[in-house]
């Protein structure tokens, strides 16, 4: 228990940040995010952008899987829907990027609702498999609806423009990705202070009980699918602006597994968990790459072993966290915080 945080009313109890220290850290974090492009190189910003896009999509999946308890392996396909919508709008209409992203979000949400329709009849693993089917079918559409999606060769699109200046380099696109990520994260965190968010949690904990309490299951499950795919669609749109080339292979089933792994490693049912998971899972391959760079003078085969080791580490992380820390990195973070709150007294 933390010292000195007695809550005197419900509003204080529900607040997103309950102490001034937390608010201070938050301001510091945002200041750091603003200062970042001026301090670091292109590659670092490239990585940060990638992490931010993954955070948006992971948070979306966390709303669906971590908070509503519906497992989905279609997140990457929903991202694909968003990315294609953005690319098509940018190529054919040239509308402003903010509009494109919003349309992408809603388009993906619509697809999400359709995919979520079986969720009233089937749940758990059957639902997961239905979403695999959805992603296979969407992949087929991306690859074969050649007149719209460009088929297997995909689409390449012009960069986003912001008041006449084009966003090409990572440090330019960063100014589009970062604010949107921050806004969407605040949105997700606030969602669970509302009636809808609490209904999601009730459904996760026991859906039949939730129905008895008067929560309409179909409506809220579809809503969860819609919100989650909205996040995926926006993330896909950002992805499209960031890479500017989209092919059907850009959004494989493995990517959906990546997002599911990210929320498991980070912590299901926690916004912080989604963030930590996305950061961790995106950075692990980079750390491995750095290790290969260090090792290759001594051990020339290191580069060849790199790709399989990456796959093994990916799988091993999922297994390790599920067996030893099912609450994920968010729980580890909470433990560390708890330790320092009471330090030097014994916990």
């Amino acid at each position, binding site marked *: 228990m933390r010292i000195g945080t007695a809550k005197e009313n419900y509003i204080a109890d529900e607040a997103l940040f309950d102490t001034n220290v937390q608010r201070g850290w938050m301001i510091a974090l945002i200041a750091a995010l603003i200062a970042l492009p001026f301090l670091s190189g292109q590659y670092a910003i490239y990585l940060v952008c990638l992490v931010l896009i993954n955070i948006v999509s992971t948070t979306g999946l966390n709303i669906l899987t971590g908070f509503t308890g519906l497992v989905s392996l279609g997140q990457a396909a929903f991202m694909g829907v968003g990315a294609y919508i953005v690319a098509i709008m940018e190529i054919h209409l040239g509308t402003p990027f903010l509009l494109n992203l919003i349309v992408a979000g809603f388009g993906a949400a619509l697809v999400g609702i359709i995919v979520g329709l079986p969720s009233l009849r089937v749940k758990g*693993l059957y639902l997961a498999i239905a979403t695999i089917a959805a992603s*296979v079918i969407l992949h087929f559409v991306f690859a074969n609806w050649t007149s719209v999606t460009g088929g297997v060769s995909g689409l390449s699109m012009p960069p986003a423009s912001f008041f006449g200046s084009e966003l090409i380099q990572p440090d330019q696109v960063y100014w589009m990705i970062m604010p949107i990520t921050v806004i969407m994260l605040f949105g997700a965190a606030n969602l669970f202070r509302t009636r809808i968010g609490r209904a999601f949690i009730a459904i996760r904990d026991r859906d039949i009980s939730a129905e008895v309490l008067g929560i309409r299951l179909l409506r809220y499950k579809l809503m969860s699918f819609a919100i989650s795919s909205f996040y995926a669609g926006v993330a896909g749109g950002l992805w499209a602006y960031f890479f500017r080339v989209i092919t059907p292979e850009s959004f494989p089933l493995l990517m959906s*597994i990546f997002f599911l792994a990210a929320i498991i490693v980070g912590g299901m049912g926690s916004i912080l968990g989604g963030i930590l998971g996305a950061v961790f899972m995106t950075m692990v391959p980079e750390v491995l790459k750095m290790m290969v760079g260090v090792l290759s003078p001594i051990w020339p085969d290191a580069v060849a072993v790199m790709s399989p080791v990456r796959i093994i580490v990916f799988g*091993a992380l999922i297994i390790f966290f599920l067996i030893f820390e099912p609450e994920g990195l968010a729980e580890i973070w909470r433990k560390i915080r708890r330790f320092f709150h009471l330090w030097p007294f014994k916990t």
Partner: protein
Amino acid sequence: MDWLFFSEIGLAGIGTGGLYAVAGLAFVLIYKATRVVNMAMGELLMAGAYIFIGFSAGLALPVWISIPLTILATGLLGGVIERTIIRPMLGENAISIFMVTIGLGSVLVGLVEIFWGADPHRLVDFIPSDPIFIGEAYLSPKVGYGFAVAAVIIGLFLVVFRTWRGGVALRATAGDQAAAYSMGINVPKVFSLVWVIAAMIAAIGGILVGSIGGVSPSMGVYGLSVLVVVIIGGLDSLLGALIAGIFVGLIETYAGAYLGGEYKMLATFSLLVLILVVRPYGLFGTHEIERL
């Protein structure tokens, strides 16, 4: 319509379906006894095929020694997986266990790539290559003999499952774990046994699939088709896996022959969606009733 072509495709489809049925059998066996949805089934098949390469090409052993050794080694692998990864997850919710098997699949792919590289391999040819004609219809010998072996394996398994003491213990565990425990059946041992047997069946499936189409680390995709098979048949129905295996094999081959290769996955997965909407528990699966 060309009936000869139609029936040839049908035969090939049944042949493919026989292999799906073998893999589906291993899948259903694990699910029935331990309630684990094994997403690593395709990877287990792949591991079996690569272990066979290790024995037959790596150590240059004759095929008739390599096959039993492969089955034993893969069975051992199955046992190790059960003890180290699945056992600690007992009692966790189904979704966590599902994710653990996805992680397992990824680890298996990585290990295979470290030992054998990412390029596709061909298995040692051991299936006779003289063409088979049923009536006038030609059937590729590999598919034909593969189907024959698959049928024998399935038949053998069903007999063992009915009569052998271990098979009875297995069915008892699948029926009611607590009751089986209190009747003196060593349930944890049955769990290990199930994984060993399923891995052995997967090894045979892997060798057959590998000798028809070659092996590569991306063979795990085969597991997705197996997933379609077991969902259509019903997760806990052996009969369902067999029938749905043949059925999916036929659909896939016909879609591939008449519409084009890219329609294979689309056809099977559309069928899957249809089945999920109409009969969520599959054709022969048990409809579980939820209680508060």
